[in-house]
């Protein structure tokens, strides 16, 4: 049997909807596992990419220092890096906070929030630094493919993966490109 395609996935500032859409391939998951081997992914307990992999799928944009670090690690370990979904491609809904300052956002939740007691902004060193703006992935590293949608449908993800595995250009046909 040919070597399996090594795939790593992660979620940065995303909602996990793109990962759920991958699981929406349903029983085709069994077919996929015949040809793909998962490295780091939130669905297993591998916390870091162990070795260079063929394909990295990233959901979500970049909202804190931790995200930047993880994204760079993925870029250095993945031959092909894919931005999956609107959050990765444009920043998505989380980037709506870019219309406000970070301080305004924090104040609203922890100082001015309804029913809030012991009001103060969490500042423990354990909490990663937030970026002033939520950014799309390609602002930080080179991205090889973009899979649009919120989330891209399971069929779009399936098409992309199977074309890639067959050694063809995995660009989506027109009918699979849609935001909603």
């Amino acid at each position, binding site marked *: 049997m040919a070597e399996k395609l090594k795939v790593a996935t992660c*979620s940065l*500032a995303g*909602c*996990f*909807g*793109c*990962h*759920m*859409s991958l*699981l929406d391939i349903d*029983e085709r*998951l*069994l077919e996929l*596992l015949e040809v793909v081997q*998962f*490295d*780091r992914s*939130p*669905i*297993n*307990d*591998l*916390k*870091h*990419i*162990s070795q260079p992999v063929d394909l990295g799928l990233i959901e979500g944009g970049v*909202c*804190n220092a*931790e*995200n930047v670090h993880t994204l760079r690690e993925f870029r250095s370990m993945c031959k092909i890096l894919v931005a999956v979904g609107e959050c990765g491609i444009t920043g998505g*809904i*989380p980037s*709506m*906070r870019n*219309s*406000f300052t*970070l301080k*305004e*956002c*924090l*104040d*609203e*939740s922890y100082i001015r*929030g*309804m*029913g*809030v*007691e*012991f*009001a*103060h902004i*969490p500042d*423990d060193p*354990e*909490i*990663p630094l*937030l970026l002033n703006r939520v950014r799309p992935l390609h602002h930080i590293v080179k991205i090889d493919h973009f899979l649009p949608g*919120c*989330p891209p*449908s399971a069929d779009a993800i399936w098409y992309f993966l199977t074309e890639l595995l067959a050694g063809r250009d995995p660009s989506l046909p027109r009918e699979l490109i849609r935001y909603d």
Partner: protein
Amino acid sequence: MSPSARLQLETASHPEALKRIVIEPLTRVEGHGKVTLLMDEDDHVRQARLHIVEFRGFEKFIQGRPYWEVPVLVQRLCGICPVSHHLAAAKAVDMLVGARQLTPTADKLRRLLHYGQILQSHALHFFHLSSPDLLFGFDADVATRNIIGVIAAHPDLAVQGVKLRKYGQEVIRVLSGKRIHGVFAIPGGVNKAFSREDREYLAKDIDQVVAWSRGAVEIARSLYVGKLETSESFGAFRSNFLSLTTPKGDFELYDGALRARDDKGQTIFDQVDCAHYLRYLHEEVKSWSYMKFPFIVSLGNDEGWYRVGPLARINNAERMPTPLAEEARKVFMAMGKGEPVHATLAYHWARMIELLYAAEAIQGLLSDADIFGTDLMVKGEPALEGIGVIEAPRGTLFHHYKVDETGAIVKANLIVSTTNNNTAMNTAVREVAAQYLDGKKLTEGLLNHIEVAIRAYDPCLSCATHALGKMPLQVELIDADGQVVDRLVKGADGELSGEAV
């Protein structure tokens, strides 16, 4: 360890003198989390915390948007239970447009959507994320301790899980147009009538889905009673419970009033109108987490924390409204011998009873003539404030919005299910740290015990980051000078590596 000792584990008196261990990122949970442990020279645990380390700022950036956008925007908080946010927001928006009572058709179709969501989320949680721990053992080989391992070792069970989730997702797709982030609820009702073809499509598999769900309850029950001692003691503690119930006190997921009971099952409050939730529940901010810590106002922040979700709902309910789930509930409650069931691992069993309830409730609705109605919308006298509360898969979910005269949002408050369980999850982490890690040389398998406890609560750390935070998990050792001397990281091969700092 006594409860007071457990409480002390929240904050060590001299953290600077301790070694820090970090588990990060948390895996097989939905979202981003991190646990830190501080240990002394003899490897005794002195502090254990679960941090949410991501923040989104939703309550701010929603301001200025028109209210009717909210049910569409807000589901992007969470791709695992988008329907819960969609519906909680829609219920709040119903109040804004003065829709006091939806038409029977709209009410039932929204319920159908919600039960589809409960089914898919519970199936995902149990089969895809948690079953590897329960089937293979908490410290099984990291290479097989995942759904792919389950597919290899128990293909029938794994495929059932995949198909149960698929069915729930199909209910959602048929109603809302897409499996994830579709739109169905609109202010005052729903946007589409249900067709006979849709009904035939969903009805053809529902008996099978009910049968599988019965099987799932049995699997969860036998895994629990098969190792009864561990099941009852693992990360276990007593707590208050909060959930919605019907006016009669029965199990309810979509509507109803708030009920809180103490650890013995005595009433703290009952039949509280959801619109008054702020009189009863406040949230404490702690510097080390973006996730706030809610508590019952009358009991105060130290004593007033509670648990939500499947365990709370089953404990709090007088009855399940469907026959098979009610049978299963009785078997479950017998474990508590007249008191609420408190075990952390009992969440999984309770979750599968709810899965069965959702399947039966879908079955019932599919043969209810009201679902074919075409009267989908109501309107009324507009209001400037709306509050929507629902039982999401992980527990009670609060959405609260204020608008100005133009209908633009001026203030928002969300308490998501996982936030309600914040103190509970932290307590479970401390409990497991004290029970299993204290005085030991840490291994990957031991650290996974902490995550097993967190997974029982099915935390949706995606939702929990709505405020602005994100939560990865890792463990570090800090020496007497406050220097990080050792960081324990799970390598991709599952090996622990003590990363030099």
